[in-house]
């Protein structure tokens, strides 16, 4: 049977805009960053126009990404702290990966994996921000000792690599759980999606409405 699908609002408009801003700047950063990191992928720096422009724009988009992330942070941080049930989810990680999440845990706004990813991304981005500023030529790097710059260059690339992996995981999850993407596009998800992945959140939402 098919009735008109019921939807619930998951992401506000500002959060969605911020998210896609982060996505866009992340893509540009990752592509240009990989171009700088892997000599053989140097052509990827052209995503920002030219290698020289990439050197200039990469940190600029870094700031954009951080700003977007600040909005996302404040939009989501309230739901990112550990709750009862997160432990349960963690213990059944293998079942979750097998697609049985709804059977092993009753997830609220976010599941424990999402929360961990959230803090990982925030943490990595914070390091990227600090190290990025320290190695930023020609505006800031000259004020730091070469040994500090050296360390930061390495940390920056290390964190960037981890961030790319983390964000890839995040994107993959969205791809794996069908019906997730629309939440970040339209702002709404289907009730069935919510009931499947975030039943406790749906309950709270509907409880409030009543």
């Amino acid at each position, binding site marked *: 049977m098919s009735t008109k699908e019921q939807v619930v609002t998951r992401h506000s408009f500002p959060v969605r805009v911020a998210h896609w801003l982060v996505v866009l700047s992340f893509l540009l950063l990752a592509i240009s960053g990989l171009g700088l990191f892997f000599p053989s992928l*140097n052509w990827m720096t052209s995503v920002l126009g030219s290698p020289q422009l990439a050197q200039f724009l990469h940190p600029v988009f870094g700031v954009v990404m951080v700003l977007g992330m600040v909005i996302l942070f404040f939009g989501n941080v309230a739901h990112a702290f550990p709750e009862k049930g997160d432990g349960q989810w963690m213990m059944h990680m293998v079942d979750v990966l097998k697609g049985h999440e709804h059977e092993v845990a009753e997830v609220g706004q976010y599941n424990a994996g999402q929360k961990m990813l959230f803090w990982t991304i925030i943490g990595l981005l914070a390091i990227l921000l600090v190290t990025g500023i320290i190695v930023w030529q020609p505006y800031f790097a000259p004020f730091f000792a070469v040994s500090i710059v050296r360390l930061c260059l*390495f940390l920056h690339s290390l964190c960037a690599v981890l961030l790319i992996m983390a964000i890839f995981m995040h994107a993959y999850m969205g791809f794996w759980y069908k019906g997730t993407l629309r939440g970040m596009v339209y702002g709404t998800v289907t009730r069935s999606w919510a009931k499947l992945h975030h039943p406790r959140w749906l309950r709270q939402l509907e409880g409030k409405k009543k």
Partner: protein
Amino acid sequence: MTLQSQDYLERSATNALRPPPQARDAQLEVAKLIDVSICIGCKACQVACSGWNDTREEVGFNHGKLDNPLNLTPKTWTVMRYNEIEENGKLQWLIRKDGCMHCSEPGCLKACPSPGAIVKHANGIVDFVSENCIGCGYCIAGCPFDVPRLNEKDKRVYKCTLCVDRVSVGQEPACVKTCPTGAIRFGTKEDMKKLAEDRVEELKSRGFQNAGLYDPEGVGGTHVMYVLHHADRPELYSGLPKDPKISPLVGFWKGIFKPLVAAGFAATFAAAALHYMAVGPVKPEDHEEEEKA
């Protein structure tokens, strides 16, 4: 054939599987030998460097010492550094011409992410090809001698070229040409090492028991070498590093770290792909029916 060197033993950010053009490698390694024991610190080399290379620093200020400009800059590719040492009641004024050392294993080149922005010629000269420079400053971090300098105006990094333009047509670098006392010499690295031996021997005969040649192995030797009266303590000469080498961090970052990262990415993507193929998508509608059933 266009004007090109074809003698690049190394080229920054270039994969070793496809090395740079280097057929014209039948060249002797060159070296500049700076004999600090007969250097009078006249700065003629500084002036000649600016003169030949058409660089003009801003007129600065006195900083309470003879050094001026105080440091290397994008337009000052060599500076004289003066250090006063008093030991056993005897004053020594150690004067050193500072600038790029043209390492055999250049840290700048290793760090550089821009293909062809830094090259090493067959004769050992390490040169910055500025049109390829992107201004990231990695070379600054890569250099064990703190030499490259970023120009604020064009956002590119500069340093001594060892007058590659002069050397490639058979002339000595401008600083060598102008040095009035013969404290800066230029020739094949082999000849310069022989010359240095004589100088070291002469210095030892004057009581400088620790005289020696500074040609640090940590960077594979250099193409700018010093004769020092105190080769055991190079740091006396305004901080000439005792055992310079490419920072292990830079070595790791630009070395094994890259394949590790590539492998990491590959593993991540593979894991996701395999997972998707194994588990398949999770669709809410599948579960709706499951519930109803």
